[in-house]
Structures are given as structure tokens and as C-alpha cells.
């Protein structure tokens, strides 16, 4: 188990190292941060002073080594724009993104699993076909379009829900959370729906496919032959088998959800890391971009670790020690 975790962390370190190089080179190629940071009227002397204070006067490889040196001591540099530690900026906005992604995931599981299960068990019915047609739409509609349509309908036309922002939050151990109040939910609903829709469609399809596979298994027939109620056959014997792949996929998809949150956060002006990333890229605020990517990679590693542990809990045939 410990070996397993250490191996995972080493993989993560490798990814972070490669990525930081790419980001450095990438941003260097996109443009010169100074052009954005320094006003056009500034004198050449001012420019140089600012460049020196940000370390931008040195050659790129030197900048990179300096970054690595301080990063190893836990210092990821200061934002060019805000002048605050980049990592602090990210962590400050992380709860908003995580909350959005988690609520979107939970919503997509709670809606997707029952729909998929129904579509699988009653696959010849009209309702099942309608569900599958719906899931194709959910899959293929672009994220931003869904977001805009939801805003059009629920915010502009009906006026039921706010179109943007995060609204009131509740402070829990220093973390700001929306989902504890009704007012918070009003702000959360549309972005979470937008973000979760395609995941929900994916879960519907996965649940349907596994349900159709599992329902033909001998152990389901044996469960019926034991005289179990239909409720128990479906709710325990079939559902528990479906939850194994659902948990794995959902967990792994949580990572892409966090990444996709960038688009949704921008549409709804949700104050999360994704919106910060977009703003930072626009301003060529390299330290923030690098810090964002590092945080996200670590997050993904953590998620896949949790998924593996959950998987072994759900499927007793899997033991972590054997996982390669």
C-alpha cells in the first residue's frame, strides 16, 4: 500500500517537472509579460527596473533554474500581476472550483445512475430510448453553448436564477462554501448543471451498458431463484456490480471536470481556479499558471489514488498490492 502511494507520488513529480518546463517555454514563446505589465509610457529605465525585480532580465534557462531552486523550498514565486504568492492565490480559489466540480459530479451520478439503470433493465421501452437519445445530446452539445442556453432560459427569460457570480457563502473552518444555503444553491445550480451534463450523459451510458451485461449474469438469476424481491435484486445485486465501473470512471472523470471547469467558470464568472488561470494566461502571469498546473496535477494524483482505494473496497477481487 505504502509502496503503491510512493510510486504514485513519484509519477506525479515527474509529470510536474516536465510540465513546468513546457509552461516556461510556452509562455516565453507567447509573448513578453513586460509588454503587458509595464505601461507604454514608462521609460526604458523603469522597464529594466521592473524586469530585474521580477527576474525577467535573465535568460530563460536561468529563470527556470531559479524557479526550480525556490520551488523545491516550497516557494512558487509571486504573481506578476497581484504581487502575492502564486500558490496562495490558487489555494484561495480552489474551494470554489472543487465545490463546483464535486456538486456537478454528485448531481451527474444521482441523475445518471437511475436513468441508466432504467434504460438498461427496460431497454425496449420508449422511455429507455428517450433517455438514450437525451444522453447523446448531453454528450455532444458543447459546454459553453449549454451554459449560455441555461442562462438564457433560467436567468434571462424566467429570471429564476442569477446568471453569474458565486453569491453568499458560508465559512466552514476558513473555507467558503455555497451549498449550505438555499441562496448559495441558486448560484451553484446553473454552473453545476452545465459542468455535469456531459458527465451525466457518460454515466447514463455506462450504467446502461453494465446493467445490460450484469442482468444476464447467472448470479442475478440465482438471486431471483432465491426468492429475493425485485427491489433487492436490482437495488443490491445489480446496482452494487454497476457501481464498480461507475465509481472508477466518475473518479477519474473528476479530474477532467476540474479542468473543464475553466470554461464553465468563465461563462458564469465563477470565482474559481479556472477563471484565475484564464486571467493569468491573458496577462502572461507565468508564476500563477505554473502554480495552477502543479496544484491540478497533485489533485489528479490524489483523486486517482482515492479512486483506486475505493475500487478495491467495492470490488473485493481487487487488492491494491497486486495493482501494477
Amino acid at each position, binding site marked *: 500500500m505504502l509502496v503503491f502511494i510512493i510510486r504514485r507520488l513519484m509519477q506525479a513529480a515527474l509529470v510536474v517537472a516536465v510540465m513546468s518546463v513546457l509552461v516556461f517555454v510556452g509562455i516565453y514563446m507567447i509573448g513578453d509579460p513586460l509588454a503587458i505589465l509595464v505601461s507604454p509610457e514608462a521609460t526604458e529605465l523603469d522597464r529594466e527596473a521592473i524586469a530585474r525585480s521580477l527576474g525577467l532580465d535573465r535568460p530563460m534557462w536561468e529563470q527556470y533554474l531559479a524557479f526550480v531552486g525556490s520551488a523545491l523550498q516550497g516557494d512558487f514565486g509571486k504573481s506578476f500581476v497581484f504581487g502575492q504568492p502564486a500558490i496562495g492565490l490558487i489555494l484561495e480559489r480552489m474551494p470554489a472550483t472543487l465545490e463546483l466540480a464535486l456538486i456537478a459530479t454528485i448531481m451527474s451520478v444521482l441523475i445518471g445512475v437511475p436513468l441508466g439503470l432504467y434504460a438498461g433493465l427496460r431497454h425496449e421501452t420508449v422511455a429507455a430510448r428517450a433517455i438514450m437519445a437525451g444522453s447523446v445530446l448531453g454528450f455532444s452539445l458543447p459546454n459553453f453553448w449549454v451554459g449560455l442556453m441555461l442562462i438564457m432560459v433560467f436567468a434571462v427569460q424566467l429570471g429564476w436564477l442569477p446568471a453569474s457570480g458565486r453569491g453568499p457563502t458560508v465559512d466552514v473552518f476558513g473555507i467558503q462554501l455555497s451549498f449550505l444555503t438555499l441562496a448559495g444553491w441558486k448560484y451553484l445550480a446553473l454552473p453545476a448543471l452545465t459542468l455535469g451534463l456531459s458527465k451525466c450523459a457518460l454515466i447514463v451510458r455506462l450504467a446502461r451498458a453494465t446493467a445490460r451485461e450484469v442482468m444476464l449474469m447467472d448470479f442475478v438469476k*440465482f438471486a*431471483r*431463484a432465491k426468492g429475493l424481491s425485485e427491489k433487492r435484486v436490482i437495488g443490491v445485486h445489480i446496482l452494487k456490480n454497476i457501481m464498480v465501473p461507475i465509481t472508477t470512471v466518475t473518479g477519474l472523470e473528476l479530474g477532467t471536470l476540474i479542468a473543464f471547469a475553466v470554461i464553465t467558470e468563465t461563462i458564469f464568472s465563477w470565482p474559481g481556479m479556472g477563471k484565475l488561470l484564464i486571467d493569468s494566461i491573458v496577462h502572461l502571469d507565468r508564476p500563477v499558471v505554473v502554480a495552477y498546473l502543479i496544484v491540478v496535477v497533485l489533485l489528479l494524483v490524489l483523486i486517482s489514488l482515492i479512486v483506486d482505494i475505493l475500487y478495491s473496497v467495492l470490488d473485493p477481487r481487487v487488492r491494491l498490492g497486486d495493482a501494477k
Partner: protein
Amino acid sequence: MVATLQVENLETHFPSRDGIVRAVDGVSFAIEPGEILGLVGESGSGKSITGFSILGLIDPPGRIANGSIKFKGEELTTASPERLRQLRGARIAMIFQDPMMTLNPVLRIDTQMIETVQAHEKVSEAAARVRCVETLKAVGIAAPEDRLKSYPHQFSGGMRQRIAIATALLHKPDLIIADEPTTALDVTIQGQILYEMRKLCRETGTALIWITHDLSVVAGLADRIMVMYAGKIVETGKIATVIERPQHPYTRGLIGSVPGAMPRGKRLFQIPGMTPALINLPPGCRFKNRCARADATCEAMPELAELQPGHGVRCHHPFGAEPLTLAEVR
């Protein structure tokens, strides 16, 4: 005495694009308490579907199209789903062919056994657990208290089949349908399980339908035997009568293919050909294209006729008193 099970002219059909698959086509038989009935036939002859029909577990669009199934006098073909559920697992139990597939891989053994007890009786979990432990002991599982906490993958095939059998025995059913329960196991374990099942049936008066494609398995186990071919019963009678004087050419072929039935050194005899597809069957005897005795009369379907009391044969040209020889079979 009312029979444990009385099946009359059972027909189970599966509609398909090319026509109706008549998996079970006019099967009638009865079984008394404590009796062991062997149901023998090649793969695809409709043995399992006969068993599932009795339990009301035919997967749609398949359905029981005709006939009657009376369990201790109660009609099952028209019974409500809830009534069938009450009977399944409690009064009528079934054991499946492949022990690797019958237990749910993600649930512990205790969950799977206790739920069976509680599906039919309002008892506490502790009481149900005690019952499970006792039943597991009865089928020869050592330290059942500990084994109950395991998952199916932690057991061998033989142990899993014992667990499935124990599960079937939890409510001391009146009828057990065992669908080739030992085929997947090695010969020693097969023998043990056969012996134990037979003992249990004798002791408790449970009627047992033992489905198999291997005649030698039921030869030492059953009281009566029923040979099935392409959805129809072709021969039925006391085990000794049928084995010593098989009347139907198909039964003779089956006996010929049992090791030991033929003189040493002779190659094991196999019936040439295959079971016909059970779809759009031509009229006449279904065995005719594989039968050495077939002639023009076989273009009409023979009736299941009693040659002697209790010995029925569906053939225009039964063997009568002729002894069993290899040449005859060919």
C-alpha cells in the same frame, strides 16, 4: 397423495426474428416427495428451460405458451409474481450449473445467504446467521462462522457449489431443481456432492430433479429417468428399466456413449449428428435424421406410448426385448 410437482403439456417458447424457438414442446411428468428424477439430454434439448419454467424465471420475450405446472396442487403458470417469489428459494430451490457464476462477486457469503433466509421469514439477522452456519456445516464446510465473512472468489469451485447447495437448502424446500450442478467440478468432488444430495433428499423427503447431459451421473443417483430430445421427452421410466432395456434409439445412443457401457477396447460411441435447431421444425420424429431405424412411418410424430406401466417411449420402432449391442446402435 398429491404429487410434489405435476407438469402437463408444458410448452415454453422464445419468439425470434426467424420464428418461434420451441425450447420445451409438450413436456409432461410428475415427481413424488423424496423422489429423485434424472432429466437427461444433449446440450440444447431444453432441460434448463424446463427447470426455469417451473420457477417462473423465463427471460422475456420467452414465455410459457401452454400447459400447466402444479406444485403440490397449486397452479404456477397463472400464479402472481409475488406468489412465485414466495415459493422460489423457499419451497422450490434451484442450483445452477456453473458455481463460479452463481454467487455475486461483490457481496459476502453471509449477505447472500442471510438475505435468502430473510426473503421468506421474519427473523433477526443473528438467527438467520445461525441457520446459515448450520446449513453450511451440513454440506461439509468446515469453520462456517469464519467462512461466512469471505467473498466468493476466496473459495474453490467445489466449495462455491456447496455454498450454493446450502443456500438452496436453507428453507428445507419440497423440490430442488439441480441443473448440472457438478459438471464443472472434478470427479471426486462430484461424487461427494452427489452422495450428500442423495442423503439429504432421503432424509428430508425433498423431491429432486437432477438435470444432466451425462447419463452415468444419474445412473447411480436417480429413481426415475426422463430422456429429453429437442424439446420433447423421448423416453421415461425407472432407472433400472431404462438403462437395461432402453427402447428409444436416442437413449441407446446415450448409453452407448457412457464409458464402461461398451466392451473394453471399443471406441466410445458417439451419436452422429447434432440436435436440430428448435426453430421451424419439420413434422415427424425429431430424431429421424440421426436414427438408423428411421423409415417412412417416422414422417409422423410418434406419441409417448407406455410399453409397460411407467415405461414410456416416443418411437415408432422401439427395440422391444432386443439386447443392447454396438451394431444395433449403429
